[in-house]
């Protein structure tokens, strides 16, 4: 900016046509900003691809992921097998595509369950206050004090898997372990958010008009207090995917017959010097999935945060 420009800023009339003509709410302002953010679109496209991969892997590959061709063990990537083959002779491309399901399922479910528990506990604690608040927040503190990974390991070894365990039973257990330790942060966030919203005049107005507690919570508090929880849950989704892989790495999450990125990565680590591609592709997909959810959350938060304008 040149010097004349600096001086001229104050003198020029503000361009008022847009800002005065149609007053916009924070959310419509935010969506306008999101539309021009390429990070938002990039992460959204990635997420759609991963969701498709999880739902219908057949769209992406015709190869059977559990067909081992031992003759081709550890063959490097080529035009016929894009990602190469691992030590068991499995086609890595097919396994990476099919592996999306476990990670996405665990991430989505854990995010939804933690949000539901966290929102209920946080809202009730803030809304009723007093003894209920104290009790619920102390309970939250207790779970918050248990280190995340540690609690996950304990939970998974308390209810161990066998080779015959049903796929969905194992996924359910991983989700339960992650949710059990993940909800306190959401509950704290929601409590703070509700306390902020509750102080507003429109809540007092709704109460004065005779709205019951359920109605006040449902149609006045929740819509106004949910935004931070949605953002943090999206970012957490990435963290849960990563945590699921860590549990598989430690041998207590999903195990061998199941196909997942975590299992593939932890198997490939033994062969890292012989067949680095068997590590590269599953971890690349895992990181892309984590990245997509974090970027989406970041973009939405920035768009909704008036301070970043």
């Amino acid at each position, binding site marked *: 900016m040149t010097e004349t420009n600096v001086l001229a800023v104050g003198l020029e009339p503000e361009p008022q046509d847009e800002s005065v003509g149609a007053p916009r709410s924070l959310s419509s302002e935010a969506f306008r900003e999101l539309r021009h953010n390429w990070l938002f679109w990039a992460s959204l496209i990635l997420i759609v691809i991963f969701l498709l991969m999880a739902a219908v892997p057949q769209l992406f590959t015709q190869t059977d992921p559990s067909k081992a061709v031992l003759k081709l063990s550890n063959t490097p990537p080529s035009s016929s097998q894009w990602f190469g083959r691992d030590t068991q002779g499995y086609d890595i491309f097919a396994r990476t595509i099919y592996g999306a399901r476990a990670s996405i399922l665990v991430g989505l479910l854990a995010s939804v369950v933690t949000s539901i528990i966290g929102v209920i506990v946080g809202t009730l604690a803030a809304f009723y206050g007093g003894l209920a608040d104290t009790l619920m927040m102390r309970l939250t503190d207790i779970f918050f*004090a248990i280190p995340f*990974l540690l609690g996950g390991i*304990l939970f998974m070894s308390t209810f161990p898997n066998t080779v015959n365990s049903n796929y969905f039973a194992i996924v359910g257990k991983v989700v339960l372990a992650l949710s059990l330790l993940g909800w306190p942060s959401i509950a704290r966030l929601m409590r703070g958010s509700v306390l902020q919203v509750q102080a507003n005049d429109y809540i007092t107005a709704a109460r004065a008009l005779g709205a019951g507690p359920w109605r006040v919570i449902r149609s006045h508090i929740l819509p106004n207090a949910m935004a931070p929880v949605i953002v943090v849950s999206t970012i957490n989704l990435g963290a849960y995917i*990563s945590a699921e892989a860590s549990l598989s790495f430690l041998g207590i999450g999903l195990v061998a017959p199941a196909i997942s990125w975590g299992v593939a990565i932890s198997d490939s680590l033994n062969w890292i*010097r012989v067949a680095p591609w068997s*590590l590269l592709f599953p971890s690349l997909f895992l*990181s892309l999935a984590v990245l997509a959810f974090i970027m989406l959350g970041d973009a939405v938060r920035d768009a909704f945060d008036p301070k970043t304008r």
Partner: protein
Amino acid sequence: MSKYIVRRLLQMIPVIFGATFIIFAMVFALPGDPLAGKCGERPCPAAFAAKFRADHNLDDPLLLRYVKYLGKLLHGDFGTTFQGLNVADELSRRYIITVKLAVVAILFELIIGILAGVLAGIRKSGFWDNLVLLSTLIVIAIPTFVLGSVAQTVFGLKLKLFPVTVSPSPSWYELLLPGFVLGSLSLAYVARLTRTNLVENLRADYVRTAVAKGLTRQRTIGLHALRNSLIPVVTFIGADFGGLLGGAIITEGIFNIRGVGNFLFTSIHTRDGVAVVGTVTVLVIVFLLMNLLVDLLYGVLDPRISHD
């Protein structure tokens, strides 16, 4: 202030009891017989089994065992592992190693994290800003166990710059690589936190005043903006210290460091409940004390926050 500390310490008590009870219950719900495999191929002699069960209170109901355990704990007795090792001795020996590892990790966070954050924050949306934002995102997206294994293969096996695994009583040099791996995730958060706070503070009125009264750029940023921006960073790192101690399980596993995390993981595998609960109790107490310390520090660093 002292009133606040006492209140916080009192609040910690139910949290410690609650957290340890949950762990205790989970551990002793662990399926399997701790006696299995203790006597080689054959089953244990009945007399030995009876003594073992009596020594470890294995036949009492859960709640009674918890109370008995707590009673001993209050006298500073952490019990013995199934192998007969004193848990307190084992912990104090291993804690030194894990704390050393965590200190290395935190030094990396402080030096690289803050430097990267300042570089990025000084000019928002500049080259360094985008570089730091992108590289921190990548670090956040790669799980620690992948980063650790790759770092071990590349820097340990291929380039031979660092030892591949760590000796039983490791030197600082041996802990450099594991420390970096352990701290990498928090390093990324520290860089982003520093950047965000610096960007916000650079637009504050007091910075404009500093510029207006003719301070140099270095003084404005270094003396005024940075000091205020670092308050949340310092508190983050403080709270992180407690988390790093418990989160070192994977790093310690990869580099074979005989620290607390390693002890914990083997204890869970051998179903050694006494060892697990003792370790976790100490971890939780350290975690809570660090959080209290951080909250107090916040008041000291930022006089606008008062605890009275």
